């Protein structure tokens, strides 16, 4: 099959770095670290595994950051992955081949992927985390029959949606229910990540929340806060005009567009009506401020501003907020005095798994489908660009440099679907007959 392969070779990195300086698309040349090649079709990794044919694949921030080689050398995650990789973990497709023990789906079913490579696909006895449904915290990401990898797309054996065929354990796929579109289904992963972060520290009624960053995660966060929680004031911090427009459409109450970091602090002070403290009339910070911050950027800058604009931890446990970090940026220094001074809690958030919401405990993808079908949510307007997979370089450049093309979520579409690119094919309807292709 055709696939876009990422190679971990210093020589290839160097070539990409140099060529990329001249033209962004030249990051992806024949001599570089990422190129389209013919690879062997993925095998069934076991009797309870299946292979599905990719229809749509969303570009996650981690995909395009990795593609443009934006990582730090001492990154701890490199201990959990293996190369070469076929990226892409926001995938939907049609089941093409199933092992004899697969019962959850059959050939022809339309599925969305839960990319996590925990104990279950690895055929291992459940670890302490998987036992309680915290698959994202699995202890065995380097063990078992699948090469090290956190999720599909960063294990040598779990090729992702940048290829035509994707292998998956049967527990890693969720049949797309009738009435749900491909576009909706392909957003299951980013929606899950954003929702999980909010569930780490859910806002109390009347809370003022900041959503830092207005990319896919930011938009999903605004959506969740406005649609699934009562009486929440959302302040969205956007970098580009098209993001601000989108945030408005998703219901953000207040939008800050391209403010300088310290102007964010001053504006928050005005918004919540609290005092601003300065040192030498520079670098403002607040003792009061907002209740929650959902930081979908996770950079030194957003952390430094975050701890300046969040309310000092109140004594009443029912009023205690937090900063939840769901974005991933390479680490840098930030001035952290307000963090300890205000007794602030900063919580890391990673992926999603089995979650409690409104008294129901189920996998987040099941929550997602349930909420979609109940018409309580619909994040599809996030998708702004759809490219046929043959234009993958264009897709990556669009996603990475979103300001040039006013991009939100960028999605690649494979094979025959690329002809029906613009149409809103209702995936679920095809599942009704259930017949094979």
């Amino acid at each position: 099959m055709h696939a876009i392969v990422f190679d971990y070779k210093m020589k290839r990195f160097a070539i990409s770095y140099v060529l990329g300086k001249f033209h962004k698309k030249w990051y992806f040349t024949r001599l570089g670290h990422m190129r389209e090649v013919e690879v062997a079709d993925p095998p069934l990794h076991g009797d309870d595994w299946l292979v599905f044919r990719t229809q749509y694949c969303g570009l996650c921030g981690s995909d395009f950051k990795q593609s443009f080689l934006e990582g730090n050398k001492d990154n701890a995650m490199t201990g959990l992955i293996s190369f070469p990789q076929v990226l892409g973990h926001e995938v939907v497709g049609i089941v093409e081949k199933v092992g004899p023990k697969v019962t959850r789906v059959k050939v022809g079913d339309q599925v969305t992927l839960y990319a996590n490579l925990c104990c279950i696909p690895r055929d291992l006895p459940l670890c302490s985390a998987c036992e309680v449904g915290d698959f994202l915290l699995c202890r065995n990401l380097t063990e078992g029959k699948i090469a090290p990898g956190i999720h599909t797309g960063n294990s040598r054996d779990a090729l992702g949606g940048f290829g035509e065929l994707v292998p998956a354990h049967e527990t890693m796929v969720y049949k797309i229910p009738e009435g749900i579109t491909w576009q909706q289904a392909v957003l299951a992963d980013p929606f899950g990540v954003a929702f999980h972060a909010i569930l780490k520290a859910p806002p109390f009624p009347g809370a003022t929340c900041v959503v830092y960053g207005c990319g896919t995660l930011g938009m999903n966060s605004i959506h969740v806060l406005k649609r699934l929680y009562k009486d929440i004031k959302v302040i969205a911090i956007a970098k580009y005009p098209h993001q601000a427009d989108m945030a408005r459409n998703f219901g953000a109450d207040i939008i800050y567009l391209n403010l300088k970091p310290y102007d964010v602090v001053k504006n928050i002070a005005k918004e919540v009506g609290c005092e601003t403290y300065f040192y030498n009339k520079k670098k403002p910070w607040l003792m009061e401020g907002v209740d929650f911050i959902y930081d979908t950027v996770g950079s030194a800058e957003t952390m430094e501003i975050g701890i300046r604009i969040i309310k000092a931890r109140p004594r009443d446990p029912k009023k205690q907020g937090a900063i939840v970090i769901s974005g991933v940026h390479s680490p840098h220094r930030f001035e952290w005095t307000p963090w300890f001074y205000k007794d602030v809690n900063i919580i890391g958030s990673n992926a999603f798994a089995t979650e409690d919401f409104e008294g129901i405990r189920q996998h987040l993808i099941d929550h997602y489908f349930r909420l979609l079908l109940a018409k309580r949510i619909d994040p599809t307007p996030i998708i702004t660009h759809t490219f046929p997979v043959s234009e993958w370089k264009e897709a990556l450049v669009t996603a990475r440099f979103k300001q040039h093309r006013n991009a939100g979520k960028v999605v690649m579409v494979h094979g025959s679907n690329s002809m029906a690119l613009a149409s809103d094919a209702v995936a679920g309807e095809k599942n009704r007959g259930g017949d094979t292709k």
Partner: protein
Amino acid sequence: MSQPMNQSETHDDKMNVIQFEFNIWKLMKSKLRGRKNPSGYWKPGGAIVYKQIPKPVLPGEDWIILKTVYCGICGSDFTEVTLKGAPDNPLRGFISTPHTIGHEMVGIVDKVGAKVTRVKVGDRIAVYPVLTCKPRGISPECQRCQEGDFNHCANFTKGNLAPGMILGTVKNQIKNDTSKNVNFGGYAPYVCVHESQAIKIPNELSFDEAVLVDPVTVALHSCLHLDPKPDQTILVYGVGMIGLASIMILKNLFHVKHVLGVGRFPFHEEQAKRYGADHVFMSSGQKLIEEIAAYTNAKLIIPLNGLKWSMDGVDGIIDTIGASFSFEVGVRILKSKSTLVFTGVSTPARFEWTPWYFKEINIIGSNGAGIETFEGKDHHAYELYMELVKNKRLNPAALLTHKFPLDQYDTAFNTVASEAKTKRIKVAFDFTAQSQQK
């Protein structure tokens, strides 16, 4: 009101104090001299000044004058003395200079204003140093003060006093009568204290025990944030004053089964064990991670570059250093979904933080202590401390290792600076010993 105890008043109306002066030339001078040898920081002519000022008078009718017995040298004092603060530290807006340093003081009430009701002359008191609405003469109090969240008071720059969060960071001046001689820092034999800040010391407690109230309640505040369970393994990073107090609190009050420490100097190991640590690690970085992983049976993940890490490890961390290197180890060796509380105030720097989000770790800052909920009841942290020591639930007295008269500040600061040699834990200025030196 003349009191028989004020013998010194008869000598003269001056007293010796140690002050911090904000003057660019003096700061640069100290900074340069301190680089060669720490004692250069407090050499005469620099930013740290040993000098005479007039004895203070009562700033108002609800104030008292404390005759200082001891004043502890806090880590934050020493950060100031050695000019280690980051230039972009936002708390710089919360101090005013020149100020007399020192906030960990205990002593005897020497004079009281006409409206003082909580204490009387001759009472033994510890001082809760936070300069909240009440000492600033602000009424009604801000919301935070009403809730007992004194460290987050809205008025640290307002009212009758100059900007400052605590005694020892605020200029010796009151706004409504600038001619009055006052003193708001503990490195001095007499200090102005608002009556709301006075906490009576029970008869059962010595001054040696009482002077430790500030650092021990700081440790208590952080342990309450962590809220450990008895069957857990908790790591205390750093076994200085706050670290040892944390170990004692985790063992005595929270009954934590396994308390581990991380020490730096050889004597730390034995010392931390004496206060209840079950094991003390004496390494740092990669080696420390490996040792803790081995101790807790945690499987290590080996990245292509950088430090090893684990999804498992200890159940909670009290980080009394709060530096990039302790965070870097902390997020690597803390069990997923667990909490790291930091009390330390090191200068910010980059740390590799990916395990923080990946393991969904909570990192909570911890500042001072105010009204604390302990065993289901609300207490003022200082009163709670007195109770706990009185009832023998805490026994911190031995943590006070060195006492020096104020005029021996050079020796005192050197003792703090050369911890490896002096094995100091808490060093305090002792104002009862002063006359012997003259």
